[in-house]
């Protein structure tokens, strides 16, 4: 066991094993193709779901004749439909994610979710957006655990660069992606733009938007003071701040307001939101925070 080769530097093998035992939370939207996931809607699988009144036009093959014999009224048997679900993971790898291991936590979270998806029979695709020029595809839609190596290889090669805003990165992902399921956006969401339509567009594309915000410790609890010239890590633009120590309270108000905005928009689009610190251990993030939030559950 001591000579066991690590599959990836992002997680120890033991952690991958524990993660693999989980599956994603239930999603509303499904793809047309049959899969291993039982959809919320009624389908043609062998698993019984419910009864409903018969209406003219219904297939009489699904009438429960035993019930008809007892009650003299026709009732239709409904069955779960087995479906295939897409899991699209969009990673913001702009320059701002290069600070304080934010991109590392993002790739670790993406690997964990991708592994859960692959092991759960989902069709997983990963996109990492930095700028409009580079191709964002890290892993094209793939299914089965055998694609774990491709996923690991794609994620390990990510580096922070560019200044593409998260909303534009999502637009690029939606332009490339086909299929219903879940879209997980991993970003710091530190952008001057607005996300009003971003999550709606994800929802419109048949994807349930899950937003994972990862911020560094210096962003969650800055210790700035005095007169400073803040230089933007993405754009290089400078911003003069006077008496920064006195403005920290207002800073926290705006940070929480941003978090609240992203969370509200994601939930309004039928999705979920989760905020995490880059200072947090990756296993704690996945097996603790995500599990408690219901993003993954044990099989």
């Amino acid at each position, binding site marked *: 066991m001591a000579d066991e080769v690590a599959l990836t530097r992002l997680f120890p093998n033991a952690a991958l094993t524990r993660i693999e035992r989980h599956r994603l939370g239930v999603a509303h939207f499904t793809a047309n193709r049959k899969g291993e996931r039982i959809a919320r809607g009624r389908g043609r699988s062998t698993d019984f779901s419910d009864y409903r009144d018969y209406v003219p036009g219904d297939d009489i093959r699904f009438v429960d004749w035993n019930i008809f014999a007892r009650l003299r009224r026709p009732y239709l048997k409904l069955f779960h439909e087995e479906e295939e679900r897409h899991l699209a993971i969009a990673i913001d790898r702009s*320059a*701002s*994610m*290069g*600070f*304080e291991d*934010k991109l590392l936590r993002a790739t670790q979270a993406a690997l964990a979710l991708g592994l859960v998806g692959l092991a759960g029979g989902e069709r997983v695709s990963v996109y990492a957006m930095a700028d409009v020029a580079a191709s964002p595809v890290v892993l094209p839609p793939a299914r089965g655990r055998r694609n774990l190596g491709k996923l690991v290889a794609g994620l390990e090669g990510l580096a922070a660069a560019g200044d593409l805003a998260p909303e534009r990165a999502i637009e690029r992902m939606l332009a490339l992606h086909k299929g219903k399921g879940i879209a997980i956006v991993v970003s*710091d969401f*530190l*952008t*001057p733009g607005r996300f009003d339509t971003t999550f709606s567009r994800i929802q419109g594309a048949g994807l349930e938007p899950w937003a994972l915000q990862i911020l*560094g410790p*210096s*962003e969650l609890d800055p210790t*700035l003071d*005095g*007169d*400073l*010239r*803040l*230089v*933007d*890590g*993405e*754009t290089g*633009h*400078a*911003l*003069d*701040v*006077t*008496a920064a120590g*006195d*403005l920290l309270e*207002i*800073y926290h108000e*705006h*940070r929480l307001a*941003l978090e609240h905005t992203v969370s509200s928009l994601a939930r309004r689009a039928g999705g979920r939101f989760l905020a995490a610190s880059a200072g947090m251990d990756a296993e704690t993030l996945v097996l603790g925070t995500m599990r408690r939030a219901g993003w993954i559950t044990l099989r």
Partner: protein
Amino acid sequence: MSAWLPTLLAPANALLALLALPLVAVYFLKLRRPSYLVPSTALWRLVTDDQRVNSPFQRFKRHLLLWLQLLALLLLVLAALMPLVKADQERVLRRPVFVDASASMAALDAPGGQSRLDHAKREVARLIDDLGPGQELCLVSFAQRARSHGGFTANKRLLLAALEEIAVEDVESDLEEAMRFAQALSRAASFDEVLLVSDGNLPERVGLDLAFALRYQLVPKAGANVGITAVGARRGRDGGWVVYVELAGSGAALAAGGATGLVTVADANGAELASEALALGEGGHQRLLFALNAAASGLVVVRYAPVGFDSLASDDVCYLALPPPRDLRVRVAPGLVAFHHALATVSEIVVNPTTPGADDLVITDSLADLDRPARVALSVGLVPPAAAPLTLPMTGCASSCRAIVKTWKQSISSEIVSLTIRGSPRNSSTSPPAMNDGPAPRRTIALASSLRGRSRARSRMARPISRSMALSREGRLKVT
């Protein structure tokens, strides 16, 4: 309202405000903010755009150091402009300052300390330093007399020099004289107020109508003091002198546990004639008697030597002139033979002396002799005109009425003559006699002598005794 608007004495210094330009330039050129690389300035941009951050106070706070520097420059420029508010100046343009220079102003506040006059001078010097443009002062010192040390002037140098001239005089102060001087000043230059700097030994009321306000400034109290308040002498039975000395102490001396010292009487050469230790008790004053022999004539010095601190030295010494003994010069009118024979038998009386000089006693029955210079004149067989009011009950008497000296008592300030009047009724049927030869009515007449130079002050902490006051026996009997 306009009186409160400040006047700028140096308006040209307003150009100093131009220093604000380089100050602002240097501030912004010198301002260096440390750069700090952050993942994104998006949140901080929201913070800087926040309305609370851009409130006027926050904008002010953003450059607090600059505003403080500009405020300091503004204050410096204001100081350089020398603003002046003419609040009191227009109301009091001229003000005489009367400084008490009487003997009590020499009292010290502590051993080796400052005198009351020093305190007064310091107050007046401060007044001179604070003198504004257009304001003038006139320094006047007063004791027995008031003296101006220059007229009204705004020249501080002259005023300070005049202030230095003021010195203590060993006499008491006369406020009435000082106020008369102030009235005379007001006729030459108008003013609304007079400042009086004194130690407070002033009469309660002065019978003068003043055309100006009198502002009184009291100097600090002095330290403990014991002084000679009265001294006198009279002839003793053995032909010598009995000198009495009265001393009094201030409250501070008694409160400090009493005062002790030595009172000595010495002749003009300094030879001690008598001495006695003094211990002032609770009463605060003590009277001492010294018996001197007949040889102690001439000038004698009474001196109090305190044990410990005494704030005023001028009231510790006084002088007393004791005239030498001589024969009594008596002038007897030729017609009064009985008087002549009777007095000639007394060895210490020279009747009708031939040497020039004033007579001590004139006994006469002639009005012409009453004009002779003499200390005492006795009229026999006539009523002198000056005594006419005292002899009113005798208006019914004839010219043969007689006034006979029964007793003759002398004191330091008065002489008392007891007369027995005898006479026959006037020869008139319409005017009944007021007196007859029956039981003679007796009258005791108190005759006050004139005491030149005597202090009018009723009480003083330390009353200097002048020599003229001591020579009270020089008074002349006005009535025979």
